[in-house]
């Protein structure tokens, strides 16, 4: 790839997503585009870029998708989910006992794993009668569509999902796994660009803005954090990625520790550490709920399983592909 190609690529990604890839992120260009080059049969990244620069909209779309989608897994990094389960949601159960409603934003939600992971935890922690609304947004329409479908490949469900959760919340659907209607009812997904105003999102009790600020320049980061403050309730919670700091950019926020995880709170909020003790505040999971262990800190002596729905199994049979195939093994 020529320096001119790199400049063109960075400009393309910036125009399409406001994501800034400075020269220190050159490696991202190479590693993310390499699979496209190979699968598309191009000789080099240069050839791929030349095709896009010549006006191929399809290739341009593929490049933007490759550059802006994140690897994602269930309960990614675990710490924030532990903090949600043990500190943040219990605190909200105390604070919102009148309205019994919690709204959570999964920003840059990719294919939805974070949003559904949060939904699973909410079903474990929140008492009956509460409403949870989890809103996932992503720049890529393709990702939003995937998140809405809630259908994941075997490889995807292998990434970080504890087996008891898989059997509790997913049904086998051919070679894929389909998320349960209950989790789907708690979530919604839509397109959203973090660099643009957050229109019509409403206000949230918890915002997950993890592993995405890295793509933006300093001014845009500051602006995103400022506008995020505007959609976060005064006693809400903001999670950033484990390795992300927002030092000097987090105007209007203060930093606090919860269950070993660092999170941001709107200035003026009561620190959770100073809140009333949470003993007895969270009812233990009732029957029909999954074991409240994601992950089990140590292997449990026995795995107790909730009653399971037995999904109706449609009959499976070998069937030919739509177009009849000619087998030519050794025939050439």
């Amino acid at each position, binding site marked *: 790839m020529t320096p001119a190609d790199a400049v063109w690529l960075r400009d393309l990604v910036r125009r399409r997503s406001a994501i800034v890839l400075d020269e220190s992120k050159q490696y991202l260009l190479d590693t993310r585009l390499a699979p496209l080059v190979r699968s598309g049969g191009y000789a080099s990244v240069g050839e791929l870029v030349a095709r896009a620069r010549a006006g191929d909209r399809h290739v341009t779309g593929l490049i933007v998708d490759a550059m802006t989608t994140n690897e994602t897994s269930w309960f990614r990094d*675990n710490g924030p989910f532990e903090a949600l389960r043990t500190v943040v949601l219990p605190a909200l159960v105390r604070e919102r006992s009148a309205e019994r409603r919690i709204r959570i934003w999964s920003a840059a939600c990719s294919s939805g794993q974070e949003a559904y992971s949060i939904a699973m935890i909410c079903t474990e922690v929140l008492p009956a009668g509460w409403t949870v609304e989890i809103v996932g947004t992503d720049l890529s329409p393709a990702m939003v569509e995937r998140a809405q479908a809630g259908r994941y490949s*075997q490889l995807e*469900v292998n990434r970080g999902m*504890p087996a008891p959760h898989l*059997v509790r919340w997913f*049904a086998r659907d051919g070679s894929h796994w389909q998320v349960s209607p209950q989790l789907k009812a708690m979530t919604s997904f839509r397109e959203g660009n973090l660099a643009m105003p957050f229109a019509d999102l409403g206000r949230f009790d918890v915002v997950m803005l993890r592993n995405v600020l890295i793509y933006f320049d300093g001014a845009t980061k500051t602006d995103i954090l400022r506008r995020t403050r505007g959609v976060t309730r005064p006693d809400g919670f903001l999670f950033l990625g484990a390795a992300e700091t927002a030092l000097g950019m987090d105007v209007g926020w203060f930093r606090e520790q919860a269950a070993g995880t660092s999170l941001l709170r709107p200035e003026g909020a009561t620190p959770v550490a100073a809140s009333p003790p949470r003993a007895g505040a969270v009812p233990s999971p009732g029957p029909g709920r999954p074991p409240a262990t994601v*992950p089990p800190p140590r*292997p449990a002596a026995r795995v107790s*399983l909730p009653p399971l729905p037995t999904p109706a199994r449609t009959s499976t049979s070998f069937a030919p592909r739509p177009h009849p195939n000619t087998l030519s093994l050794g025939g050439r």
Partner: protein
Amino acid sequence: MHALVVDDSRAMRRIVAGILTTLHFQTVEADNGATALAELEQLTAADRVPALACIDWNMPVMDGLELVSAIRADRRWRDITLMMVTTESEHGQIVRALAAGAHEYLIKPFTADAMADKLRYLGLVPAEVNA
């Protein structure tokens, strides 16, 4: 830390043992449930009870589900984390394995990262070690 890898496929034992070695386990291999129990007896006698057993389901002589039950029934082995590693991926099969006492379940095919993730969550691999 020791890990027992039980699979009748030599290729799969090589793959799983390879990943576990990268994650700093010392591995011992067995090709079915019965030989696995014999290996476990030897390891136990040498005071080297493994922390982890990765167990295939379909094997000759004694299958993985029987092995899980046998290990769960023996108090000497109650600290061993049991992870099924198998192509059996039907919903009901996973439930059966968990009910028999398996702690985790990894469906083949899986990536090295997926195995490392599961072991990290089980507390068997430090957060900073990658496959």
